[in-house]
């Protein structure tokens, strides 16, 4: 009877010993698989979520450069300080207190330049772009705005706020997750004379998608010209948008998203738009740095602009999920170390408990290496049985464990965000950190790694514990037993 036959009989005829080891190996295997699946899920989730959140570059006008250009323009005015140059105008107004200089600039002076925007949008890696106009007040025509009855409206200009967008889906309020469509659709590039209104405004005026809204130029004293816009969507907000200025004109419910060129019409400056921001969405967030470098190399007057990173949440998300990946790796390492110790102790106990058998086999002329081989075969038989159980249970258990870890991590990130919420006053809103694509799959590679890891672990444990067998003398064992 050889070692293999003895090993098989020992496994099936000593069920308690077998079940104990089976339980331990199943537990260790499942912990390793959980760790690996969580790590994999975190990396995948991180990638998916980063791609889903997206990242981009924001183009704003540079304020310091604006003053510089005003100063340069003023050098071209006459000796009285009056004149027009490059969209900047200055005029003397006689008042009761004496002459006063009144200065103003055309929209073209302050606006982002469409040519520059198009050059940036053409850079490889830029998937899409949006242009947002300055908030433009316009008087409501055939509808009433939302007003706070307790507010004195004397100082308010009685308008609603228009925000023009080339592509509303890339508006910062939408990207942040605060604004979403309740019915209808958002403004798309190429739309003309369309708008998306708040659910409150729609409800208060019984406006539906497809209705036409009328606006009037607040600077037109007679309010003679009507600017009509078709409602294509109704939006909702998670929380009210921060007003840019005081007064009901700028309150969240009165913000109307329009197509890009509508606000300039409603303000009476047709063909002189004032583009405040441009946002360039980067197709593959992993290419963020290279795309940004390519954008910076474009030949435009960069002194006029600020190019702002809009990928803050990428690093937040990365750090959160890197932590999860680290925890998962730590779980695997700890499980391996603890597994080695536990298995070693189990096999030491095995060897000690089977002293009699080892002594008899040695007395019968069995080689020590064969006895060690028998223990290894027994352990491996149980290990393979454990694999069958572990791999069968793994998909369910790892999903529960990994989802738990991912949820914990997301909750922790949210908690941290809430704690920091009141610390800094900022208009900037991070994009929503909705975790998408949590895919906890136990792959063949994971099973192969777990399997080979466990076999190595069992082999090492049996080997270390079996050193005592190699040192045993049959006479000592048998004397001890008798």
């Amino acid at each position, binding site marked *: 009877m050889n070692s293999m036959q003895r090993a098989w009989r020992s496994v099936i*005829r000593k069920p308690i010993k077998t079940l104990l080891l089976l339980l331990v190996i199943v537990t260790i295997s499942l912990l390793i698989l959980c760790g690996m699946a969580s790590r994999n899920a975190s990396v995948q989730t991180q990638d998916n979520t980063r791609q889903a959140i997206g990242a981009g570059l924001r183009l704003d006008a540079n304020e310091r450069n604006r003053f510089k250009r005003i100063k340069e323009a003023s050098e071209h005015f006459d000796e009285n300080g009056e004149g027009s140059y490059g969209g900047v105008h200055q005029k003397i107004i006689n008042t009761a207190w004496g002459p006063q200089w009144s200065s103003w600039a055309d929209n073209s002076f302050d606006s982002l330049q469409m040519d520059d925007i198009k050059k940036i949008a053409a850079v490889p890696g830029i998937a899409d772009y949006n242009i947002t106009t300055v908030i433009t007040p316009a008087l409501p025509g055939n509808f009433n705005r939302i007003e706070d009855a307790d507010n004195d409206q004397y100082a308010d200009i009685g308008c609603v706020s228009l925000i023009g967008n080339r592509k509303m889906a890339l508006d910062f309020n939408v990207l942040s997750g605060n604004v979403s469509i309740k019915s209808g659709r958002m403004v798309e590039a190429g739309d003309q004379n369309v708008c998306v209104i708040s659910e409150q405004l729609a409800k208060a005026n019984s406006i539906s998608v497809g209705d036409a809204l009328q606006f009037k130029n607040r600077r037109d004293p007679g309010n003679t010209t009507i600017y009509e816009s078709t409602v294509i969507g109704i939006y909702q907000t998670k929380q009210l948008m921060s007003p840019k200025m005081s007064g009901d004109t700028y309150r969240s419910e009165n913000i109307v998203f329009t197509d890009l060129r509508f606000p300039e019409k409603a303000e009476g400056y047709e063909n002189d738009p004032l583009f405040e921001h441009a946002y360039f969405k980067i197709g593959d967030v992993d290419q963020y740095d290279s795309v940004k470098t390519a954008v910076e190399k474009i030949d435009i007057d960069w002194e006029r602009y600020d190019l702002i990173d809009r990928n803050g949440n990428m690093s937040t998300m990365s750090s959160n999920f890197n932590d999860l990946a680290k925890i998962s790796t730590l779980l695997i390492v700890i499980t391996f170390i603890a597994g080695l110790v536990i298995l070693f102790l189990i096999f030491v106990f095995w060897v000690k408990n089977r002293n009699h058998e080892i002594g008899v086999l040695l007395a019968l002329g069995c080689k020590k290496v064969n006895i060690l081989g028998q223990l290894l075969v027994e352990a491996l038989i149980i290990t393979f049985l454990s694999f069958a159980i572990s791999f069968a249970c793994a998909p369910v258990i790892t999903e529960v464990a990994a989802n738990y870890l991912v949820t914990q991590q997301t909750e922790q990130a949210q908690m941290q965000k809430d704690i920091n919420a009141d610390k800094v006053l900022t208009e900037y809103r991070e994009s929503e950190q909705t975790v998408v694509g949590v895919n906890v799959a136990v792959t063949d590679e994971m099973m192969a790694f777990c399997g080979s890891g466990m076999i190595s672990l069992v082999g090492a444990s049996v080997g270390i514990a079996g050193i005592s067998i190699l040192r045993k003398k049959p006479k000592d064992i048998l004397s001890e037993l*008798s």
Partner: protein
Amino acid sequence: MILEAKNVSYYYKSNKEALILDNVNYGFDCGKMYAILGPSGAGKTTLLSLLAGLDVPIKGQILYDGKPLTSKGLTAHRKYHSSLVFQNYNLIDYLTPIENVKLGGKGNPETLLGTIGIGKEFWKRNVLQLSGGQQQRVAIARALASEAKLLLADEPTGNLDDATAWDVIDLLKRIAHEENKCVIVVTHNKELAKEADAVIRMETHT
């Protein structure tokens, strides 16, 4: 002469002062049963261990077929030249009688178990379910399964009642005479020792 102890001395390494065996010389032939008789501590089991190749003497040597046991290794001696029967049977507890006998060597286990009087109904039971006498018979069958010329038994009747003990001694005697084996039995029992072809008396070393 199949087996010979030549100037064999032995002491435990933990107590070098206490000499267990002191210059023992003796030769053993096939076809005979030898009884090693003596009081406790006389070194009977130690001598049997050395003859079985479970240990090596401190001085002198054990020769098998004229060659030292160490020449081919003690493990080979235990596997091919000698077979052992112990007082406490030393069967493997998770194996059946048939499987235990198979451990001993290539001999047919069913035939051997039948020969020594273990009924067929016991062959596939767990060995721990057998009586002491039956377990000792299984141990003897295991020893017989080996083609070894030597059968060494350490107090084989120590745990058995008188009737069973006599059966076992008869069996060992028969094995020596009918199968031309060299059977060496360590025993306290002088009556049983009388059944042997030769008795080796050992005294406590002073």
